[in-house]
């Protein structure tokens, strides 16, 4: 099964890149560089680290292009690599996720991730939305890594269950099961309970 709604240009470039055409892969980097960087910033909240993550993701994709089987969006596959690299960085540096850092870094995280969809809201509402966004991210980052992956790819990268399964190398059944458990755990967290904002972090990391 090959994903049907992939951009034809990307498909053509991928075919060339697979045959060893470095320029074609360079063009892919041009197309996906900015979206990938945005995902990385949203993930880690640090532009310098995000740039490194996005670049290393594209390098890893180039080195392992033969592993991409076309069963998910190419961008979903890139995001799955990005998630793994971010987890490795956290492990290596024993960092806590950006969204769970202290107030100073929190400001930086909010600055980078604060462009929420509704720009026309009042300043107070915008601040509230931003705070909610941080809380939601904290909740997601408190989940086990396997649940974070599925939530991230489903709601922030927005691919089909089949695409997510292909990108992560699992069956659709596994993805559905993890999706249920992740949503159920989030439901139980205070941040998702109505009118409650006294969320306490569990301190998990990706």
């Amino acid at each position, binding site marked *: 099964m090959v994903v049907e709604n992939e951009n034809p240009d990307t498909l053509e470039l991928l075919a060339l890149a697979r045959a*060893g055409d*470095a320029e074609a*892969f*360079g063009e892919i*980097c*041009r197309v996906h*560089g*900015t979206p*990938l*960087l*945005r995902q990385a*910033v*949203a993930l880690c909240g640090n*532009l310098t680290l*995000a*740039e490194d993550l*996005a*670049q*290393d993701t*594209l*390098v890893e994709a*180039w*080195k*392992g*292009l*033969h*592993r991409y089987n076309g069963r998910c969006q190419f961008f979903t596959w890139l995001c799955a690599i990005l998630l793994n690299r971010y987890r490795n960085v956290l492990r290596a540096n024993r960092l806590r996720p950006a969204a769970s850092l202290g107030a100073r870094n929190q400001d930086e995280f909010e600055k*980078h*991730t*604060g*462009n*929420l*969809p509704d720009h026309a809201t009042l300043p107070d509402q915008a601040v509230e*939305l931003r705070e*909610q*966004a941080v809380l*939601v*991210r904290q909740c*997601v980052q408190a989940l086990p890594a396997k649940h974070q992956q599925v*939530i991230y790819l*489903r*709601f*922030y990268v927005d691919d089909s*269950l089949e695409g997510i399964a292909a990108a992560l*190398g699992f069956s659709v059944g596994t993805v*559905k*099961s993890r*999706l*249920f458990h992740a*949503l*159920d755990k*989030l*439901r139980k967290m205070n941040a*998702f309970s*109505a009118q409650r904002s006294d969320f306490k972090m569990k301190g998990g990391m990706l």
Partner: protein
Amino acid sequence: MKPCTQNRKLIAWFVANALDARQTRQLQAHLETCEGCLRYLAEISNVTERLVATQSNPDVQASENFHQKLAGKLRAAKPDSMGEILAAYLRGILLNWRVAVPAFAALVVIGLTVAIWRQPSNAPSPTMAGIRTAPVSDADDDLSPTIANYQRVASQSLDKLDALLTRQGNRPLPSMPIYTASTLGLAQESF
């Protein structure tokens, strides 16, 4: 009121657009009558709505510097060699316990089978002893007078068989008694 246990997954998948049409119809019919499931649906919907609402879109662009640095990293990197591809493939297989465990079990079974098969028998059967004879040479006087030995020599050359029989016929008789209880394989007590 609690949701029905068997419907919790279906509700979560329904909210995440992961339910087929038939299941969706069945669940919707159930939701009209079950207050617990309806409440669970509202809670899960709240989670997904917040996840979607807080989807951030950082206002950053990959700069020219980003691409130049990336180009440098790409130049330094080479696509995986066939060896690396194979190693990665095998690593992927071996890290998957669903494949690794049966493969390991199969290897153990094969190893045990080979070990048992190669184990030498301590007490060869009389028939085998009779068949396993010494290599044929010109001096076949020592060959025991069995049918198998005669057949083997005959298959090589009838002249050889003739010579062997002549030689063995000219040998002096053994001084030991031939027909004893032990040579006949009879127990001493039976006499």
